[in-house]
């Protein structure tokens, strides 16, 4: 270190004030830091620009036909994305149906019900679900889950598959690799995210308010219904949407268990395909065919836009809920 003046302050601290180079260093440091921050915006802009540019042949040809087309037939140069948009939506909806009640239940357990000793371990274990790589979920679902799942689907299909309307959804010839299996795996993967954010949202309600309700003689459930749920509703919606954003874009686990089906099929026990899984399976072989390649990149553009919209909405909702809770 340099010499220290009589006041105990390092010399360089005092002298740097008077040197104009200090200002210059400070400004450029700030500039570099700002540049690093702006790289986020640059990357997002580049993603939007380059993927759209590469998908342009398909959008330019017939953008509306691409988004609403129901036929995906690369050998005949037909590229309709709707079956995959549908598959993504159905798998995500199934995932939400399982994951939302479970996640909110877990969040309520850790925040309201759990004895102190259990709270930390449960949070830790649920977070562990997020640490498992998605390809390992896929491997497990493909090798272990699929055959017992098929047996269960067959039982369900046998009992309610004959009923007119329900039969359209639960009937058919069940397959282990199906929209349903993909939805179940997505649900497991969504739980840690939705739980974590739900916990944060639930924690914004003050203990005093809850005690007041309990002091009036409310049971725990009545307390939750009277003074917690009405105030966390929008926050929970945000949490669910963030989980949905994750489900929409999840690729590898879904690609391994959703099967393959280029048609819109109302049966959830039948194979399907999601936008991400089609890209993962087909991009390698499409590289040499410009239209096919552009169509797959077009799917990525749609996926990017969907997840962007869902995430922006979710962040906006949770942000607003937090600001309101802070007041």
């Amino acid at each position, binding site marked *: 270190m340099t010499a220290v003046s009589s006041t105990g302050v390092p010399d360089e601290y005092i002298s740097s004030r008077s040197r104009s180079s200090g200002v210059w260093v400070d400004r450029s*440091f700030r500039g570099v830091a700002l540049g690093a921050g702006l790289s986020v915006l640059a990357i997002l802009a580049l993603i939007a620009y*380059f993927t759209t540019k*590469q998908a342009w042949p398909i959008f330019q040809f017939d953008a509306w036909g691409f988004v609403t087309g129901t036929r995906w037939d690369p050998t005949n140069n037909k590229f309709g994305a709707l079956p995959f948009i549908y598959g993504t939506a159905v798998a995500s909806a199934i995932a939400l149906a399982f994951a939302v009640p479970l996640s909110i239940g877990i969040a309520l357990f850790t925040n309201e019900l759990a004895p102190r000793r259990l709270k930390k371990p449960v949070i830790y274990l649920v977070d562990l679900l997020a640490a498992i*790589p998605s390809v*390992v979920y896929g491997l497990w679902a493909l090798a272990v889950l699929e055959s017992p799942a098929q047996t269960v689907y067959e039982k369900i299909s046998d009992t309610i598959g004959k009923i007119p309307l329900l039969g359209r959804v639960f009937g058919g010839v069940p397959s282990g690799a199906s929209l349903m299996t993909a939805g179940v795996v997505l649900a497991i993967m969504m739980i840690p995210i939705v739980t974590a954010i739900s916990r944060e949202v639930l924690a914004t309600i003050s203990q005093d308010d809850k005690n007041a309700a309990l002091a009036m003689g409310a049971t725990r459930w*009545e307390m939750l219904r009277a003074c917690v749920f009405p105030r966390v509703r929008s926050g929970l919606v945000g949490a669910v949407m963030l989980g949905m954003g994750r489900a929409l874009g999840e690729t590898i686990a879904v690609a391994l268990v959703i099967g393959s089906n280029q048609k819109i099929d109302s049966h959830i026990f039948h194979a399907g395909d999601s936008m991400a899984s089609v*890209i993962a399976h087909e991009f390698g072989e499409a590289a040499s065919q410009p239209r096919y390649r552009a169509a797959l990149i077009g799917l990525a553009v749609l996926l990017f836009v969907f997840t962007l919209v869902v995430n922006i909405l979710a962040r906006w909702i949770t942000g607003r809920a937090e600001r309101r809770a802070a007041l």
Partner: protein
Amino acid sequence: MTTTSVPTGWVGDRSTSPRRRFADGVASVWMIGSVIVALIPLGFIAFYVVAKGISVISWSFLTKNIPIISDSAGGGIAPAIAGTLTLTLVAAVLAVPLGVLAAIYLNEYGGERPVARVIRFMADVMTGVPSIVMGLFVAMIWVSAGLHRGFSTLAGALALACLMLPIVIRSSEEMLKLVPDELRQASDALGARRWVTVTRVVLPAAIAGIVSGAMLAVARAAGETAPLLFTIGVSRKFVPRLDAQNTALPIQIWNNAQEPVRAAQDRAWGAALTLIVLVFVLTVIARLVAARFATQER
């Protein structure tokens, strides 16, 4: 029963009515049941990965090259282990300095300025961009179009870095936020410029958290498959060069899982256990580093 607007059930009767107690009980069962139902798959996955993986893993599995024909037993996954380690290391070298600098801007300079708020919001949004889109994006600008550099380790690392960047930014910013303002004020009072304050006072105080946050981002990136599918190419042996094609543990799991042959399935489970152990070790190291730095600071 009462004349107030309070629900009748709440006031007046000493004991809670059976119906109310029943509703409360059902709610408690829901909460406890949710935890149990969510932890069942965790137990199953852990059991299967360990049980099936442990019988496959041997010294030769961990040290031999990937076999040409995946249908027959033999060979190993050494190149994939080396690949995963280099890919994540290079990605960390690219993403961590950038992310920490961005976090410094957000917390030390930007504050609540519009630019900072936009960056913060977009970093959050960027964590939601699907990893397959990141992979395709790098394939677009680096591999098959744009710069036409072909499949390479660097391309894969770029894709992983894009994925890590927003995570590093947000976790580092949280850590910088924890540094008490008194430290900054003390440094300011000594006449230090802002960059001196940041590099000499704030960063050393937050380094433990920043390092462990970065390690957790690395652990997350190590398990990613989708960004690597169209960027790193194919390789059966490890070539320690940035412009060479490469392979990784998740890619090996993905390839082998889709082959309905015993030898390939075994290899997938072995690679899965190796990957999970690797991710777990990285996570534990992150915690230890954090703890060690933290005690040094005090």
